[in-house]
């Protein structure tokens, strides 16, 4: 399974991040489409799902997608493989536990995927490193045009593309940017930033983590969780220590509950606005928030550069020396290192390296990519080893 999914390969979009782009990690464009002559997946029987999958695969073949990627059918995938595709930001959350006869086309570069029989019949997802919505959109749009000529998508002149969720009808497009905003968060200004862009139909959500903080419930005796870990960590599912994706681009939560200072900027309206306008609105808001993050960084440096440097240096020391590392702690370390590096206080780090470490620290990456056991303690040991290797001088 690890070979089929190319678990050891770094997705192309990670390398595509500009060396000075510390705030934006990745841009996503997601397009939801349905075939006009079938009920939507939630109301489809097994035979219909087979027919939809066969038609989709035939269309993929005709537009030559299999020259640069392959289809992973649910019949040949276990939970870990689904989680891996979720961690790679290709398969959204509902694909992980959907009904049978579903699958994902994954491009060789792992920066493009198509979900079949998920929330909608066809969901295209393109990824681009950093703030590059236009690049992601161009790729998603090209494949969408190719498929539209073959598949006959459900479409009305008044309402546009018909989707299973009323929140996606119209363009069926979710454009989002994953942002790292530690300085705005430290200054307690995230809610204000979110409020400033809301009226433009763009929302700033916190990114939710699954299995956040879990190190090893069984290792710590007694009912109380280990010091420094949230109480719920003791009850977390051991396998799910990752950042999953959704149609929006990430599984979202309230800004105050964001993990690792990670936030998702995403369009909320899909009807009555064109694709170009959506890309402009989200892109413009992303630039504005990035500039605000830069101003907040400058303010933090003025107030206490030594504190930020201390935080980054401590994070580096833990990354180089830890023997057990929970997912939540790993996210916090990566955030401190990213902030330190962005301000020139931590050397030898690039956005590319930190994003790669963020992907690799997730549970199924450790299991499939590095052969770790799937229990929380084995994951914590392997994650600490990964950090020592990545950040050793």
């Amino acid at each position, binding site marked *: 399974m690890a070979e089929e999914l190319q678990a050891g390969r770094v997705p192309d979009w990670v390398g595509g991040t500009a060396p000075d782009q510390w705030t934006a990690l990745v841009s996503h464009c997601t397009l939801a489409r349905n075939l006009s002559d079938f009920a939507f997946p*939630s109301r489809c029987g097994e035979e219909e799902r*087979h027919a939809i999958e066969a038609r989709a695969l035939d*269309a993929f073949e005709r537009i030559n997608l299999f020259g640069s990627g392959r289809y992973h059918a649910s019949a040949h995938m276990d939970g870990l493989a689904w989680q891996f595709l979720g961690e790679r930001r290709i398969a959204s959350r509902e694909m992980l536990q959907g009904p049978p006869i579903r699958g994902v086309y994954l491009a060789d570069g792992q920066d493009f995927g198509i979900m079949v029989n998920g929330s909608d019949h066809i969901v295209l997802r393109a990824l681009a490193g950093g703030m590059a919505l236009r690049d992601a959109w161009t790729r998603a749009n090209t494949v969408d*045009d190719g498929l539209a000529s073959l598949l006959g998508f459900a479409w009305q002149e008044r309402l546009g593309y018909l989707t299973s969720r009323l929140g996606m009808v119209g363009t069926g497009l979710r454009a989002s940017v994953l942002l790292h905003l530690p300085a705005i968060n430290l200054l307690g200004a995230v809610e204000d930033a979110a409020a400033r862009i809301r009226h433009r139909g763009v929302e700033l*959500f916190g990114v939710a983590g699954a299995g956040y903080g879990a190190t090893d419930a069984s290792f710590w005796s007694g009912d109380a969780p280990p010091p420094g870990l949230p109480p719920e960590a003791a009850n977390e599912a051991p396998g799910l220590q990752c950042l999953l994706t959704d149609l929006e681009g990430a599984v979202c939560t309230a800004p105050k509950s964001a993990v690792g200072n990670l936030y998702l900027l995403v369009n909320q*309206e899909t009807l009555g*606005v*064109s694709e170009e306008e959506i890309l402009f609105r989200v892109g413009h808001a992303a630039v504005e928030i990035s500039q605000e993050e830069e101003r907040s960084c400058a303010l933090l440096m003025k107030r206490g550069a030594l504190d930020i440097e201390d935080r980054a240096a401590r994070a580096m020391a833990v990354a180089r020396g830890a023997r057990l590392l929970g997912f939540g702690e790993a996210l916090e370390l990566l955030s401190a290192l990213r902030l330190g590096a962005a301000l020139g206080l931590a050397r030898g780090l690039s956005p590319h390296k930190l994003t790669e470490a963020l992907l690799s620290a997730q549970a199924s990456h450790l299991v499939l990519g590095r052969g770790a056991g799937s229990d929380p303690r084995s994951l914590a040991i392997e994650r600490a080893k990964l950090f020592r290797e990545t950040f050793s001088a």
Partner: protein
Amino acid sequence: MLCQRCHKNPATVRYAEVVDGKSVHQDLCAECLSRCKQDLSSVFTLGTAKPAVRGGPAPQRTVRRSRRVCPVCGTALERVAETAEVGCSACYTEFGQEIESVLEGLHRTLRHQGKAPRLDNSIARLCSDLQTKRVLLRSVLRAEDYEQAARLRDEIRGLESGLRLTEAGTD
């Protein structure tokens, strides 16, 4: 669009309230909306006049629950209103008015402004129809529904000859 209060469920309603003289809008899911209403009613309990003061007991209000379902996919209108999710393309026509009222809460305008699918490739459409019918034929044969299978076989023959003619026309 996600609910701006719980950030989990899809927002189905745009909720407005006046705070310090300013109108504040929030997009909420059904669950958070009912919670908001409860909060509001608990705030106003003391200030609300008793039914007797207002002129006798208030008339008994019966909540009408719609039992309409989509004839194509069987999705109930009530479920569409609750989840903001539909079962098939036909739901959009069947529940047109009700869906538009939900859409009004989610989007600013109800007129599509974006791209349209390119459907000008007649050969490709014939091919995909053919592929679908072939898969369906296999499944109805497995289910031993020979009447349906005969109908599909005729349709496939018709499509095959149509495809041959179209391809000959384009050569």
